């Protein structure tokens, strides 16, 4: 029996007693939902994916992270069976696109980056259409409830806001009750409130135990949603792990940033990096950034050294290290520069 987490969740929402539920059990098999090895894809001279190896476990929410053009979308479209790889192996749910394409399409859910559904169909009609492609799945009613589009059921797609359209795309991805869900940049172009709304939706899906693979170029999104992330750059995976592991790999849990008035060259960097607990230093857009292990033991000596150098501070601030800092540490570039 297939696991049916969304339906289960919907049932919970409807406060049905658990005794009425059919005994549905997750298969104990720990096997990977997705396994990529030696994946390569080039478009002409451009190498979009350059030897990617990856495993995503069942029930995991996995984030593929990186700047625009890093190869995330190409990677995910290879996984979705939309693009054939030049080399390498793709296994989804233990199946292969070349042999089990129809079976796989029944069992995965897909949300593409820029799909525009027909403006003149209603939400309900669109979902009924997509539902008809699947052997089994949610009813269009359930999908509407999961995506919280109840009030828009009879509205035409053309009248929906960006966030509502994205939730409709999500509902279309869920309507076949997929075992594996691909979300390609689900919140790109949305306003902050709509983003948060979508994150809540992904949270619910995670709680229901669904395997989710999403791409994003927002570090905060990955931190908020993903159990594990892979950071991609120039077609390669340059870091892989939980958010906590990646952040601690930078060498400091916190980042101290400051700027000085006048000549920044007057800053003697060696005196700062000599402070116990300061792990690294770099300059970005006029700001000195120090990765430090502990704020309360490192900030006083940093102040003392700056005062000793006779520098006047124009800015001083600290933040907890983020995936953004990880990316900077690994590539020397900012994500937003891309």
């Amino acid at each position, binding site marked *: 029996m297939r696991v049916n987490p969304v339906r289960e969740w919907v049932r919970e929402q409807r406060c049905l007693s658990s005794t009425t539920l059919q005994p549905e059990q997750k298969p104990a098999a720990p096997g990977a939902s997705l396994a990529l090895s030696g994946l390569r894809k080039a478009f002409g001279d451009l190498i979009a994916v350059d030897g990617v190896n990856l495993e995503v476990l069942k029930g995991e929410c996995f984030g593929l992270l990186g700047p625009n053009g890093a190869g995330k979308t190409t990677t995910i479209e290879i996984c*979705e069976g*939309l693009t054939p790889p030049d080399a390498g192996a793709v296994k989804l749910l233990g199946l292969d696109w070349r042999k089990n394409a129809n079976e796989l399409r*029944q069992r995965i859910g*897909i949300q*593409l980056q820029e*799909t*525009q559904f027909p403006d003149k169909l209603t939400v309900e009609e669109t979902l*009924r*259409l997509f539902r*008809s492609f699947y052997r089994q799945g949610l009813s269009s009613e359930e999908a509407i409830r999961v995506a919280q589009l109840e009030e828009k059921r009879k509205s035409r797609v053309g009248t929906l806001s960006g966030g509502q359209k994205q939730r409709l795309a999500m509902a279309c991805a869920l309507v076949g009750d997929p075992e594996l869900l691909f979300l390609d940049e689900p919140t790109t172009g949305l306003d902050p409130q709509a983003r948060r709304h979508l994150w809540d939706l992904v949270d619910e899906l995670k709680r229901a135990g669904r395997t989710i693979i999403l791409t994003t170029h927002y570090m905060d999104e990955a931190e908020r949603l993903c159990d594990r992330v892979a950071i991609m750059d120039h077609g390669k995976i340059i870091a892989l792990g939980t958010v906590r592991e990646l952040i601690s790999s930078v060498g400091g849990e916190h980042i101290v940033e400051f700027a000085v008035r006048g000549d920044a060259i007057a800053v003697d960097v060696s005196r700062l990096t000599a402070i116990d607990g300061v792990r690294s230093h770099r300059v970005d857009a006029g700001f000195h950034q120090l990765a430090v292990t502990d704020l309360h033991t490192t900030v006083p000596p940093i102040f003392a050294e700056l005062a000793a150098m006779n520098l006047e501070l124009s800015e001083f601030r600290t933040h907890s290290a983020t995936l953004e800092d990880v990316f900077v540490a690994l590539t020397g570039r900012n994500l937003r520069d891309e």
Partner: protein
Amino acid sequence: MSSLQARFQTSSLFQLTLARFRLFLREPEAIFWTFLFPILLALGLGIAFRNRPADVLPVAATTPQLTQALAADKGLNAKTVDAAEGAHELAIGTIQLLAVQTSQGVTYRYDDTNPDARAARLLADRAVQAAAGRHDAIAAQNDLVHETGSRYIDFVIPGLLGMNLMGSAIWSLGFSIVEARQKKLLKRMVASPMPRWQYLAAFLLSRLLLLAIEVVVFLGFARLAFEVPFRGSLWQLAALCVLTSLALSSLGLLIASRAKTMEAASGLMNLAMMPMWVLSGIFFSASRFPAVIQPFVRALPLTAAIDALRGNMLQGMSLAELTAPVAILLAWLVIPFAIALKIFRWR
């Protein structure tokens, strides 16, 4: 029963066809071009080329005696003018002919390239000669015939029907597919387990449903307003309409199979349809074109369609007598469809 109905309603082919149908009905412009425009065109042409009772031709003469002689003919409306005024009226077209009294007899001033003026010349001369005492050598009687089926409107209705079938098939298919491709909807659809053939089949099914409405409305109008004849079998006429629509849909599919933008698709559609608008005999017979290009003209799907429709409606020909155009249409159905399936760009 209800479970059968439910299975039908959850079938993907039904849902795809329903979606196509809805999308068409929710597009007011499409409804205008498909249903109203051909009717307006037929109405306009019907009025412009209606068979009027023979006109009374306006003429003038320079003397009252001549005017009297001319007025004796029921086909002429004569008045007396002086020479200068007559020349002016000839120039602006309010009279077709000016009869000028001269010392030798009568001079007729008229434009011999204008058929009405030539008719006025014949009538005027007959009236003047009769007034002068000429008698007919042979007694003649007129027996007037006004038969439907040989009028211009009868000729043009099958042409307009063919043109309309072409337009709706090519525009609706081409634009819908290219729009879906441009909006990445096509990509999303093929990423789902939807059988690809059903996506294309849904276009043809919704087209056939619309075709039934389109043809019945248009031909019904032609019948009621102009009493256009239907001399062949109505079932065979329906079969010809279906064949025409499918053959041109197949061409529309081919046009839409690669194009990535609406502009590109629009250009290709015009490129495909323009020769047929001009050459396929919508408004006048295609046989007027020079013999050199006749093989090309005959091979066009719209020429074959219009020939077959006219054969059925005006001459009452059966399908067995229309094998040549039907074979051409079948070829246009099969070949572009096969190519389109091979080269179709799904994303």
